[in-house]
């Protein structure tokens, strides 16, 4: 569970934890049933206030991404839920927005961007098949 906190960019620390756990889950690096680090352990590792970690875990629980089990501990929920899919789409949307903004600045049309995406997909598939 790799999380990196920066206190210089203004984003509240609990939100940085929430976003990064969401990202790890959406990217498949945290899987359903995986246990999140206990609050105290993560707080000491990141050097942040334990209440901040607790708040992040509460938000994640509220969003259905993780669940508390009776035996204490917080675990990643089953990601087959529509909510998990929505979260994955949201993360991709952010990246696409950034890509489109950059393309516009470089004077490259949306059609060309789409073509480029398809080309890259073909290229990646070919290299994967050769492995």
């Amino acid at each position, binding site marked *: 569970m790799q999380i990196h*906190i920066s*206190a*210089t*960019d*203004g*984003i*509240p*620390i*609990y939100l940085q934890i929430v976003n990064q756990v969401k990202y790890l889950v959406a990217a498949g690096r945290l899987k359903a049933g995986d246990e999140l680090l206990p609050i*105290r352990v993560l*707080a*000491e590792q*990141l*050097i*942040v*206030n*334990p*209440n901040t970690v607790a*708040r992040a875990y509460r938000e994640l629980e509220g969003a259905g991404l993780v669940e508390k089990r009776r035996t204490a501990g917080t675990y990643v929920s089953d990601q087959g839920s529509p909510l998990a899919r929505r979260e994955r789409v949201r993360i991709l949307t952010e990246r696409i927005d950034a890509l489109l903004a950059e393309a516009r600045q470089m004077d490259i049309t949306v059609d060309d961007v789409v073509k480029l995406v398809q080309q890259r997909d073909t290229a990646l598939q070919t290299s994967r098949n050769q492995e």
Partner: protein
Amino acid sequence: MPDPFPSSAPPIVEIHRVTRQFGNKTALDDLSLAVPRGGVFGLIGGNGAGKTTLIKHVLGMLRAQTGSVRVFGLDPVENPVGTLGRIGYLSEDRDLPNWMRVGELMRYTQAFFPTWDAAYAEELRQAFDLDDNARVKTLSRGQRARAGLLVALAHRPELLVLDEPSSGLDPVVRRDILGAIIRTIADEGRTVLFSSHLLDEVERVADRVAIIHQGRILLTAPMDEIKDSHRRMTLRFGESLDRAPALVGTISCMGRGTEWTYVCSGESEQLRQAAQAMGATVVDDAALSLDEIFVSRIQG
């Protein structure tokens, strides 16, 4: 600024209308502050703002000239035994008896504190890589800070007071100190009061913050509230302006022509509506780091 306590428990430190003069210089100016029990309280301010003077009042090293100071409900000057025995303190200059060896320092300090936990002290000594036989005066600056931290922590104080604990230390020692703060309050009900001008550290570890400036408290609130209530908003106006129109809750403002950037306190939605009412469009709206909030408050 009204600031209701999160719990009904009485505050662990209560400073009421304290003024302190050194000659004709006013170090504390009719200052009131309450530190609630539990959690980490960060005291932030520039050099000479009054942080150390305030802490010396909490420790009973200075007597209030006017007003009152209560720690655990007691006057620390009248009741040093009842207060100091429950406080762990690390001073900014980390004054320790130079002629002692580390082991002697531990046994010496133990004698003052009935609650001294010898096993915990030994655990800390090993974790901090401190040599029992090394003389205090031969310790590096970082090891000296670690030794000071050890004797402040080993009696498991209810209140840990750290005055600029990180100043002049390398990142590894800073991490030890901040880690100790986190572990201390992870123990239910303990309180840490620390002063710092390294605001990224304060933002990481403090639950609650007070900004002190020229001997007065400018702002005290839970960290979440401070973060939620400060925004940096850039507005674009229909025409070029010589000066920025006033926006509700503005702390500071800079810019030129049609684009002006405001640092303001208030809810994001409220501010957007106020901007719209002025016929401006919001082109950027971002949260601020504690550092930026501090600077705008001090300069605003």
